[in-house]
């Protein structure tokens, strides 16, 4: 499939500048690019999260797409509701896109997401993963990585592993599951464009660095996102009709056969400040083990 370049991106903006997200917000990048990929004939569903705040406080809206704010647990069910109403009215051309944080996806929202995926309801579910409950002040979530200090894992850091939501969605046997990163907007753009051509629930999980939550200077958001991918800590892939394929920078890394040390990523963020060298080595070992299972990819 033809790849989008920075020059071929639509110039139409759906997210106004000057919104309420923090400076350097990874979600801000992903949402701006994502809405370009979705285009104007779209309804978004948003649970409470940083995206609620980004979209503006009543009566001011910072996005141009119609948006339904829902309760925290029900994002996917609400997407189903909009979808069914559109069908009942013969308005199927409009795309329905749920856009939730990691908490709203991996934790409190997983029941409704799993239900919708099992039913095969026809919408796109975007999870932006800032690896914590940022809206409520950076508490741990199911996708917070092991070792990260958060407001409620204050001294020891999170003790448990990150929940792999994309794998859970793959296990649902849906047509399309992809991972992406705010640092690679064109890869994200192409994945959304592909997802919206497929049937049933499509799931895209985006790594979205968060300066205040992760502890780095706002200007390094893209750098941090890139390091996550270049070290192999976060991978860009898609599973289309059951077929796994690394994409973009991850595919390149596989071809090259080398990755930066994970420590470069960990040490750039203060949330990992209490990690011991042994713990960091353990993370590296797990990344290496994961990468030893990868082969093929789309090439570059």
């Amino acid at each position, binding site marked *: 499939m033809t790849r989008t370049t920075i020059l071929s991106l639509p110039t139409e903006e759906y997210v106004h500048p000057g919104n309420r997200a923090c400076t350097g917000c990874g979600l801000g990048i992903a949402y701006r690019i994502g809405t370009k990929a979705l285009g*104007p*004939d*779209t*309804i978004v*569903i948003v649970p409470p999260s940083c995206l*609620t*705040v980004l*979209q*503006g*406080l*009543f*009566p*001011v*809206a910072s*996005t*141009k*797409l*119609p*948006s*339904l*704010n*829902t*309760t925290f*647990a*029900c994002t*996917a*069910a*609400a*997407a*189903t*509701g*909009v979808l*069914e*109403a*559109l*069908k*009942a*009215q013969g308005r199927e051309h*409009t795309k329905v896109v749920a856009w939730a944080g990691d908490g709203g996806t991996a934790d409190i929202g997983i*029941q*409704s997401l*799993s*239900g919708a995926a*099992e*039913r095969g309801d026809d919408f796109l579910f975007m999870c932006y993963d800032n690896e914590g409950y940022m809206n409520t002040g950076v508490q741990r979530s199911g996708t917070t990585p092991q070792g990260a200090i958060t407001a409620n894992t204050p001294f020891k850091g999170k003790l448990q592993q990150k929940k792999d939501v994309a794998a859970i969605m793959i296990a649902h046997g849906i047509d399309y599951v992809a991972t992406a990163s705010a640092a690679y907007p064109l890869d994200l753009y192409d994945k959304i464009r592909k997802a919206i051509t497929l049937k049933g629930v499509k799931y895209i999980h985006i790594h979205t660095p968060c300066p205040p939550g992760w502890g780095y200077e706002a200007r390094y958001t893209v750098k941090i996102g890139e390091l996550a991918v270049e070290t192999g800590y976060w991978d860009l892939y898609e599973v289309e009709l059951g077929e796994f394929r690394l994409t973009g920078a991850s595919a390149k890394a596989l071809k090259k056969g080398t990755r930066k040390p994970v420590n470069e990523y960990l040490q750039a963020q203060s949330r990992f400040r209490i990690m011991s060298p042994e713990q960091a080595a353990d993370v590296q070992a797990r990344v290496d083990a994961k990468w030893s299972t990868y082969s093929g990819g789309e090439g570059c």
Partner: protein
Amino acid sequence: MHVIETGNVAAALGVRLAGAQVVAAYPITPQTPLTEKLSELIEAGEMDARYVPVESEHSALAVCIAASSAGARAFTATSANGLLYMHEQVHWAAGARLPIVMCVANRAVGAPWNIWNDHQDSISQRDTGWIQIYSCDHQQIIDDTLKAFRVAEATSIPVMVCYDGYLLSHTYMPFAVPEQEKVAEFLPPFQPAYALDPSSPANLNTVTLPEVRLDVHGELAHGYMEIRYLLQEDLRNAVQVVEETDAAYQEVFGRGGVPLVEPYRCDDAEYIVVGLGSLTYQLRDVVETLRAEGHRIGVLGVRLYRPVPDAAIAAALQGAHGVFVMEKALSYGYEGALCSDLKSALYDHLPDKSEAPFVKGLIAGIGGREIRTADLADALRSGLAGSIPDPNWIAIQL
């Protein structure tokens, strides 16, 4: 056309007549047969709607909230813990001003588990901002369900139609089915105030501040408090809408006349028993028995419980010497919720407080405990003699 069917089927037929476009539900006894019936009608092509078999009640109401926000007529039904599991969404639907209709086949709530009838489930939702109607028989169930859609759409407030689990939901009774041809005259197609639409985008239910705020055109927009005030004001005005809807229904279908309260032999009554749902029909027998013994007693069914038709209640009770409120639920830590509401209505509306009737609360049928007509009569006999039973839970055995 008359049919002999269950209360659940009566509700389902009402939903079909109303032309609900999106139905979402999750099984729970004793509601289940209602939404099973709808799935059957929809799959058989006898009803043009979308049926969504969701994975929880929280999602059932989420689907309805979203479908209604996108301009479709939406329906769900539940009971007991299903309704409690929805609670967050029950508030949300009212706050978002969506004309959703939900049937509640009333059932006791856990713990401990109990699948039988009482009213604790819907009574515990009374402060959510929904309109609550209690149907007393199968005819009222089908008529109220159809009327509920018109009331909801006229007020932009969701409506709960409550009827007794098992006693009504599972029993077979004859009732008249309104003619589909006449429905359009009573209930025109849904015209939402706003529906999600990319050609006129809006950001619905977003964070709304404590204070009023200028919009981008420099006009003052409501704060949270104004939005909530309007819900309260519109709910209060909904008493009249419920009455008007009933009058319109009577004109088209020839049935109705008791939208707020339903009195039975109250005209000359010295004593009045007040309650909700099918219990008030059972009490008619008791009233006949006690009248034969020389007591001037009547029964008043409260049909509209939220908003409280306080003026109608007070007017119906004015002149009575004593009132017994017989309830299948209570506000734990105090008394039956209807009993408190009724005292409040009397206090507000009776000009001369010294002429106010005494009000005594009685609790019956909790968790489906059999309500024997003889026990009701005995409890009221002692009440008429000046002392209600202690404890005031009828047929309790400690």
